[in-house]
């Protein structure tokens, strides 16, 4: 069975500090991977997607970056957090193709103070 694990579950960070959020998918080779962000009370927005190791495409610019160092790992990071980075970050995976369901991790809740 496929599992998706996100870490950490929650973070409280200071403005200007660095951030690294992680996501691991087990049980599925070469999935499409995605990062989504949801401001409190807001709409889910896609940030990045990756179809293969080492390749990441940006969808929305939020002064964040993403990397896929391994087939089953997706990392979201920034060197300097902004207040506007607060919210809920979700990692997701899907099989390749146009009709495939998106499966989400449990998410990371980030508060930037």
């Amino acid at each position, binding site marked *: 069975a496929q599992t998706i694990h996100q870490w950490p579950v929650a973070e409280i960070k200071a403005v200007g500090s660095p951030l690294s959020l992680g996501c691991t998918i087990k049980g599925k080779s070469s999935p*499409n991977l*995605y990062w989504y962000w*949801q401001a409190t009370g807001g*709409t*889910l*927005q*896609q940030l990045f*997607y990756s*179809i293969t190791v080492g390749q990441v*495409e940006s*969808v929305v610019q939020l002064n964040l970056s993403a990397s896929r160092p391994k087939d089953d790992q997706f990392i979201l990071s920034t060197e300097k957090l902004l207040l506007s980075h607060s919210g*809920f970050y*979700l990692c*997701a995976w*899907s099989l*390749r*193709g*146009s*009709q*495939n*369901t*998106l*499966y*989400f991790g*449990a*998410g990371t*809740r980030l508060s930037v103070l």
Partner: protein
Amino acid sequence: GQQVQQSPASLVLQEGENAELQCNFSSTATQLQWFYQSPGGSLVSLLSNPSGTKHTGRLTSTTVTKERRSSLHISSSQTTDSGTYLCAIDPYQGGRALIFGTGTTVSVSP
């Protein structure tokens, strides 16, 4: 740009009542999915239905692609159905950019 509008924004139900949630989108969708977001934030895929009618449990989704709309029918609602229901479309082939709607928050009281 592509937009996904959902209505109503919120819905209050008495347990056992049925509900109809609407999703309208402004561009052709090669993929349409309905998700449930729990009060804690986690998302679960309910149905993938780019066209036609699909059922799962007490949920029925009907998508009319030409009219760019989809509905989600919840029958015999239960308190555990409370949460936010999100519609999402993929206007491109390949699942690269799923665009989410604003959601319908459902509250079911006993």
